[in-house]
């Protein structure tokens, strides 16, 4: 009887750490964040009074928040296609035999070795409009940190640089997993590279592509560290993103209620976007 008890308890004990962590660092804070967004919270984190949706009401009329929302959505809109294009191009272009191809491949996943702050600081230096090397090499004088459009472009560049390493590896692996005989048959049948891509490669790497898209959307909606290090939301809040504003309100101003409200908005928005992505995927797979 004792042995039976022990036996049936065992699996629960084994997954206990995971469950405990999920509860402590995911579910509980989620509920607390939701709650905080519905209350007035003191500077010490105590909930003072229930205010319902009042925080959200004030948040949505706040111009700064509207800017954050617009910036984050626009960033996602620019970043996702650009990133997918560049990473996919890198994978496709280096999908060949030979030593040069290997060299190309190594270059493409090398950025993974550069940590986030290192990469951001390098970019900060080389994109300096006056003494940075980029403007010098390209013969231009773009005000990367003073022009809102240039700053947004810089943020996209930063995002791509941080992500290309792992995404290249994934797409590269996906391409390699396509059975060689299928490719042979297609080429024998006279398919040109474009057709090869459209009708053979694309469908077969679609699941990986969906994964890349999903993580890109999530990362774009949540972008914060590059903003913190590179632009600090400037110039003129043009690169202020939702999570960055959450950091300002929550940590700099100690306004937990506002910070939690922003967090809640970000969560639901991202959730909706991912849900939309899944719907699209389901439909396309069906028609295949």
């Amino acid at each position: 009887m004792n042995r039976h008890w022990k036996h049936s308890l065992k699996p629960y004990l084994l997954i206990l750490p995971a469950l405990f962590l999920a509860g402590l660092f995911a579910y509980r804070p989620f509920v607390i964040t939701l709650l905080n967004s519905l209350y007035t919270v003191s500077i010490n984190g105590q909930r003072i009074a229930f205010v319902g949706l009042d925080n959200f009401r004030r948040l949505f009329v706040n111009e700064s928040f509207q800017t954050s929302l617009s910036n984050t959505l626009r960033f996602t809109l620019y970043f996702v296609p650009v990133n997918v294009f560049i990473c996919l191009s890198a994978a496709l272009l280096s999908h060949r035999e030979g030593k040069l191809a290997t060299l190309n491949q190594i270059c493409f996943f090398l950025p993974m070795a550069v940590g986030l702050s290192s990469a951001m600081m390098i970019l900060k230096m080389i994109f300096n409009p006056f003494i940075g090397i980029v403007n010098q090499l390209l013969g231009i004088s773009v005000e990367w940190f003073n022009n809102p459009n240039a700053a947004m472009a810089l943020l996209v560049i930063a995002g791509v640089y941080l992500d290309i390493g792992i995404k290249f590896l994934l797409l590269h692996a996906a391409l390699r997993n396509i059975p060689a005989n299928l490719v042979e048959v297609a080429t024998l049948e006279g398919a040109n590279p474009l057709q090869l891509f459209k009708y053979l490669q694309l469908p077969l790497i679609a699941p990986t592509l969906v994964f890349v898209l999903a993580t890109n959307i999530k990362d774009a909606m949540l972008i914060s560290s590059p903003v913190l290090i590179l632009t600090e939301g400037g110039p003129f809040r043009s690169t202020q993103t939702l999570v960055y504003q959450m950091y300002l309100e929550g940590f700099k101003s100690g306004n937990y209620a506002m910070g939690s409200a922003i967090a809640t908005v970000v969560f639901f928005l991202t959730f909706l976007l991912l849900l939309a992505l899944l719907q699209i995927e389901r439909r396309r797979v069906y028609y295949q």
Partner: protein
Amino acid sequence: MKSLKAILATILSLIIVFPIAYSLSASFFSWADFTAIPARLLPSQPTFENYIRAFRETNLEQFLLNSLITASLGMMLRMTISITAAYTFTFFNFKGRDILFILIVATMLLPSDTLLLANYTTIRALRLTDTYLGIISTSLLAPAHIFMLRQYFKTVSGEYREAAIIEGCSDTRFLTLLLIPISKAVVVTLAIHSFSTIFNDYLWPLLVTNKASMRTIQVGLTMLGFSENFDYGPQFAAITVLMTPVLVAFILMHKPIQESVSTRFTGR
């Protein structure tokens, strides 16, 4: 066609590698080189001074040590928890198994960045600020990894395990001596990913550490606050010191790295 691909690929790869090469060169710049107009690609008179200053003027070794400890410790704990959980969900049959699995994996939908504030108050309340445990705490649960591991373990037949148990093999032995070696590629990839995720984390360690002695290298780097007057030298030296071992490792191990990323995880 092939040569067009080769040319384009090489151009793109040169662009990607440029910042890394530049920072290597810049670590030998003198202050005049940094503020030179027009900007320079190579140092006028290479100097080691930046490296000397980076270590002398800041606690670089301590930062690096903190990062290495937290990343290694975090990786080990995370892998232990993930593998154990995935193993249990795959090979055991218990009440509520599927619900509990979904419960754990569903946390993937709760991005930890949106929970920063609440997690911070939790850590503060537990008095874990400025501790290694505090830094790695939010990275210990990896729902994506548990999911991937379970997907992989499922391909191993249950009968295999039953046979082993009948032969008197305990779960632990089965796991460590048989299952993990079979899943080496997956485990290694996830371990590397765990290590680099924790190593590269910026915002969370920034919030959770106040003492200079507990800072991780990512946070510490940005605080080499020399950039106020374009004194970038020590920063670049530090960046190069940090980057080089990893770069060398990546280049030497490029084959295993590329092969280990299998698309089994993403669905195909």
